[in-house]
């Protein structure tokens, strides 16, 4: 610790603190423009000048100067104030004073400091800038006339996002913040640069002219897209969510969001939202009252009570914990069916079965904070960045700032591949288990297994013939990763799972867990296995027990049951099986066959359009409750706006049905949380009020066990390409299709081909191609590049048009042919 005096106050701070940090720690505010706590210090704006007694004679920047023992600092003398005024006058010299029409007004550091320092005249005159404004994209407007050259946008895009869209271009008086070839912005549109810009140079276009900043009602909540669980602040007015507000003190991610979180909120106010219940009459869905709709559903469900095996229910892991708990209680308890699932039957086996078998808990043994505490990250699939972008930011930060080693095993390359020192091992699709088995064998062969690991002999036998070749990689690569992983002080495996990842199942979780257990890389900080659930409440759905137990049918079996007539009543809360489950034709036929289907959703999805009763549900912004992130953090979701139209929250819908069917009745969702805290052991002792803004990570008690995992052999098929499905950059499930941001970054389904394959097929970027498998064909746009290896096609699964599940059947790899249309 270092002791110093700031404005007469004694302060003790860490030795790597700056004067700015020290002042902040004791509540003294030093004005800043170019500084941001997440970024490397820049020291470019000179707003933070202070006086240090030991360095008399000049003013020094507080944001870049480290503290030293005994320092005596003054932060506001006449001279300092004069200097700051000068800085402001110089900034205002070229800066247009268009505060009345600038969207940053009220949230602009330059405006606020000008006010604070009473700079109401300028001793200098000069011409204003005359840069052309970049309106080329619908998300981010760049008005470089307002830029104060603080460099924050360039730094965040490089240091955290790792995209590097900006740089200072030209020099001297001509210098400006620019892009490659000074062209329009063309990037991931995560909005990070907009969030840190201290002035109105970078603006969110969807928010433009929607409201003055100070007129917004600000509600802290949790993003409803992926399992990362980023916290966000919704800015709303007149019952509409108009923007997300940046708060650098919010969440583990310091307010960072991805394109979905930042620009994807529009689905809430989409004019496609369902606003009234609908009942199918004479073959058509017609508007109805809630009474009619609920009466219809109630009578069907109560009839089902006498034959519970004929009833099944699917819920989306986007619902709150309270809603999921009530869902489970209603169907398992009151209706009496065990046929309930949340797409786990297709995608979350890694959590529900794998983690339990290997670690004794249906949750990741690691949490998100472990990413930055590790020494080596082993990422499965290159696109952990794309499925969980803000975890990608954490990986970027860890690798670039702390020098954490990054190893990727994947069937294609991605953005993480380009990080400093990253090594990517590209394997044949579907060979993940074989690869982990080979890694385990290599650990054993190299004598690197931790001492006294139970079940070692069984594992030895199981992996005896697991060779690198079987996984489609070289022995050297396997030996090197095995050695690095085993000998790292702390090593963490990052495993994304979800609907688009057939094969990322229990066996893969076990195989990966074996490596962690074998090498002792678990049960300590910075180590273990992070199983990244796809949706915002994937973990909560598991915790609330929304998967079949005993003889109940899982999602896949429920679809089969609909097809063969065993399931007569199907309740679907927010799932969209038609687009997201494999083998679309089969799903459609099954759902057509089911006698009665009720769907509650925000939109008339492809599935809802087939229902007998459609119930309009609330979005996350219209309700309160909790979500549990993939790192087991239980967080408060808070209602920001009233329900759209006649929509009701799933809680209200389920509560009404429960009551009508003679089940439980709650006064509010909070009562359910109290019950969860009493019944779900991991949530013991939690209260919604106690979660406050930061939430709580519930503990896990691990009982690690080696569980041999059998690798599926997948041999290439002559003349065919291997189809890999997954997440598109910045989509999440099928909901992001209703968000402006994600749809701008990625509007359509596509198939990504290697340049060599594309050349052989005479396919160019942007061509329409037909991808055909044993189960069907889809038409999509071709993308050509070097990310996918030869012989492999990648296609994202989110889209209703050109949906890849028309051609997949749920097996680990699908062989396809691609032809130009």
């Amino acid at each position, binding site marked *: 610790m270092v002791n110093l005096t700031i404005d007469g106050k004694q302060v003790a701070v860490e030795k790597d603190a700056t004067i700015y940090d020290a002042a902040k720690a004791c509540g003294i505010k030093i004005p800043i423009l170019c500084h941001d706590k997440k970024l490397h210090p820049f020291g470019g704006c000179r707003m933070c000048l202070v006086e240090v007694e030991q360095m008399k004679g000049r003013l020094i920047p507080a944001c870049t100067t480290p503290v030293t023992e005994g320092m005596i600092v003054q932060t506001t003398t006449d001279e300092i104030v004069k200097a700051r005024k000068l800085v402001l006058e110089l900034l205002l010299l070229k800066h247009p004073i268009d505060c009345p029409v600038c969207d940053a007004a009220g949230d602009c550091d330059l405006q606020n400091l000008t006010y604070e320092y009473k700079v109401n005249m300028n001793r200098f005159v000069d011409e204003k800038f005359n840069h052309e404004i970049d309106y080329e994209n619908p998300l981010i407007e760049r008005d470089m006339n307002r830029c104060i050259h603080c460099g924050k946008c360039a730094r965040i895009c*490089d240091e955290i996002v790792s995209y*590097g869209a*900006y740089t*200072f271009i030209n020099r001297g008086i001509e210098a400006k913040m*620019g*892009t490659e*070839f000074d062209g329009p912005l063309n990037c991931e549109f995560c909005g990070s640069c907009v969030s840190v810009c201290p002035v109105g140079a970078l603006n969110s276009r969807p928010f433009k002219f929607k409201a003055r900043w100070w007129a917004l009602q600000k509600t802290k909540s949790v993003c409803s897209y992926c399992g990362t669980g980023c916290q966000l602040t919704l800015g709303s007015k007149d019952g509409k969510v108009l923007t997300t507000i940046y708060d650098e003190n919010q969440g583990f991610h310091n307010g960072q969001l991805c394109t979905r979180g930042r620009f994807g909120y529009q689905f809430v106010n989409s004019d496609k939202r369902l606003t009234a219940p609908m009942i199918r009459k004479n073959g058509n869905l017609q508007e109805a009252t809630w009474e009619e709709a609920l009466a219809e559903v109630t009578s069907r469900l109560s009839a089902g009570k006498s034959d519970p095996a004929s009833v099944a229910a699917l819920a989306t892991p986007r619902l709150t914990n309270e809603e999921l708990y009530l869902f489970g209680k209603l169907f398992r308890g009151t209706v009496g069916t065990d046929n309930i699932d949340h797409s786990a039957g297709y995608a979350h086996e890694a959590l529900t079965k794998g983690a339990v078998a290997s670690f004794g808990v249906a949750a990741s043994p690691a949490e998100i904070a472990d990413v930055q505490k590790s020494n080596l990250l082993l990422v499965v699939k290159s696109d952990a960045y794309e499925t969980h972008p803000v975890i990608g930011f954490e990986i970027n930060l860890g690798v670039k700032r702390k020098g954490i080693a990054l190893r990727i095993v994947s069937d294609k390359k991605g953005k993480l591949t*380009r990080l*400093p*020192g990253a090594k990517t091992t590209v394997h044949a699709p579907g060979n993940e288990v074989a690869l982990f088995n080979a890694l385990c064998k290599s650990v054993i062969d190299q004598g690197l297994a931790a001492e006294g690991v139970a079940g070692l002999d069984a594992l030895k036998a199981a992996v005896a013939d697991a060779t690198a070749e079987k996984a489609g990689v070289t022995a050297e690569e396997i030996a090197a990763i095995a050695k690095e992983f085993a000998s790292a002080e702390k090593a963490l495996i990052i495993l994304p799972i979800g609907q688009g990842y057939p094969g990322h199942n229990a066996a893969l979780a076990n195989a990966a867990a074996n490596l962690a257990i074998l090498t002792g890389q678990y049960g300590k900080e910075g180590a273990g296995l992070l199983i990244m659930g796809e949706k915002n409440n994937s973990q909560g759905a598991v915790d609330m027990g929304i998967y079949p137990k005993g003889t109940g049918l899982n999602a896949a079996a429920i679809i089969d049951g609909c097809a063969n007539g065993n399931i007569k009543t199907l309740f679907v809360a927010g799932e969209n099986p038609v687009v997201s489950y494999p083998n679309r034709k089969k799903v459609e036929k099954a759902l057509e066959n089911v006698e009665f289907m009720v769907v509650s959703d925000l939109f008339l999805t492809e599935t809802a359009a087939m229902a007998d009763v459609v119930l309009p549900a609330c979005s996350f912004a219209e309700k309160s409750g909790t979500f549990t992130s993939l790192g087991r953090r239980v967080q408060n979701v808070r209602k920001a706006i009233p329900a759209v139209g006649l929509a009701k929250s799933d809680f209200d819908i389920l509560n009404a049905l429960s009551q009508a069917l003679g089940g439980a009745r709650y006064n509010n969702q909070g009562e359910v949380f109290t019950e969860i805290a009493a019944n779900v052991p991991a949530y013991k002792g939690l209260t919604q009020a106690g979660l406050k803004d930061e939430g709580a990570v519930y503990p896990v008690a691990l009982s690690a066990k080696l569980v041999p995992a059998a690798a599926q052999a997948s041999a290439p098929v002559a003349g065919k390409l291997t189809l890999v499905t997954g997440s598109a950059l910045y989509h999440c499930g099928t909901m992001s299709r209703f968000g402006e941001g994600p749809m701008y970054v990625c509007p359509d389904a596509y198939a990504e081909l290697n340049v060599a394959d594309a050349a052989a097929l005479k396919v160019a970027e942007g061509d329409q191609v037909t991808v055909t498998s044993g189960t069907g064909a889809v038409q999509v746009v071709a993308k050509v590049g070097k990310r996918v290896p030869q012989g492999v096609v990648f296609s994202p699964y989110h889209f209703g048009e050109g949906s890849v599940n028309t051609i997949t059947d749920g097996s680990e790899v699908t062989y396809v042919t691609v032809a130009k249309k």
Partner: protein
Amino acid sequence: MSNAPAEEIAAEEIDLTEANEIIDKYLTLPGNLMPVLQGIQDAYGFVPKPTIDLVAERLNVYPSQIYGVLTFYAQFHLKPRGKFIIRVCVGTACHVQGAERITETFFGRLGIGHAETTEDLRYTFEKVACLGACGMAPLAMVNDDTYGKMTVQKVDEIIETYNARPMK
């Protein structure tokens, strides 16, 4: 940063063989961006866009940053340059001695302005701030040849001389 080997990058539009060779030479050296860009500029006469993409990919640097470097240093050029670079000094001494008339005459004769290149790629014209031979003001240079005490008539002589030179 992980540097990509040459074979991964296929040639596009222009022949990148030379650019690849230059990158190969510096690939593993720290601080290799400047020498690579200088090498490319020497080889191609300017820094063509495809080489920027190539350098970005192989050295794992953002294209935006390369563009930043290229626009910061006056030594780099993003457009093709003429075989003969005509520089006319407009520094104080030359200005006083009538540099303005010399530049205007060149503009008129060549049909190009400051920092422009004739369509046949024979000439590039640049005004510069002081060539360090103020005693000979007004001063012009063509590549490495210096022409002092410039007059309008000398402009025509210079253009005649270099028009007669072969392009290859």
